[in-house]
């Protein structure tokens, strides 16, 4: 049996970025203060939205939601995500930028 081995530079880059990414930390720079604050606030909002999404999934797993409740929760969370991403885009932020590095606690998203 043979295995397809290759050097995958993208995987190596990902691993390197995990320890060496200079842009991970939340910093407030006088030149980009609006964007930095937006990143912080929107990052926290997206974090809370994802917690609510996980809670909804748990309730689905437990069979605790009716079809109507699933529709209502799903619509709310879907629109909240779209709204957060829209506002982020206005500040030049991508969804990936909303991941906040909390140091030893890891990333929010």
């Amino acid at each position, binding site marked *: 049996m043979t295995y397809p081995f290759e050097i995958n530079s993208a995987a190596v880059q990902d691993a390197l970025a995990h320890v060496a990414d200079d842009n991970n930390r939340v910093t407030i720079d006088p030149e980009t203060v609006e964007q930095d604050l937006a990143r912080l606030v929107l990052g926290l909002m997206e974090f809370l939205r994802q917690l609510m999404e996980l809670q909804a999934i748990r309730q689905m797993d437990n069979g605790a939601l009716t079809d109507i409740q699933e*529709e209502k929760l799903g619509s709310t969370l*879907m629109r909240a995500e779209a709204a957060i991403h829209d506002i982020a885009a206005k500040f030049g932020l991508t969804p990936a930028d909303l991941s906040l590095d909390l140091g030893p606690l890891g990333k929010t998203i």
Partner: protein
Amino acid sequence: MNVLGWTTKHGPWPQGVSCGHHAGLFVLLTDADKGRERLALQVQCFKAEWDLMPVAPTADLSFLQAQRLAEDVDLQEQMRRLSGMGQLTVSLTKAQTTLSKPTSGRQWIHSRKAQHDEMLQDEQILRSMVAGPKTALSSLRHQADAVQCDLLIKQQDVALTQERLITQAAAIDTSPNASLFVTGPWPPFGFAKLRTDHAAVT
């Protein structure tokens, strides 16, 4: 100057790295101010001796701070644990599939539940791949299309560990769009416990 890490060896070290001494250990220092430059130096130092207790390349830890750290952390004990050790980063990656855009809230939440279930399944697969006797593992990390973790291994166990990963990867049934990537061996960033009440440097 910023600290790259501690070692028990005297070198010689690559250009751009100087050596200090405290807490019974050699301290590797550099003027490089970018995280990526420091990381490159750390990898070179590690490859030379397999004897490096690294700090996070972006930690900006000064020599003075390192001396204070030695008051709170038993660096000698940490060094004993990490000397001759490196880490492999193992990543289970899945090609992103294009999903149709949900047309209702119910469809959306069900697609998110499916993604969540798949993520838990990937975690389980990765855990079973890397599990082995006396294997120290970091906690799992998630990216958009991957789940990954670090393994702490001895220098002499690298080939054996890679062979074990290949065997276990071949034995585990994964979807055809899944790939396993192994990066390293490189400095044991995921295993140097250098946190104190005052600062986190890894």
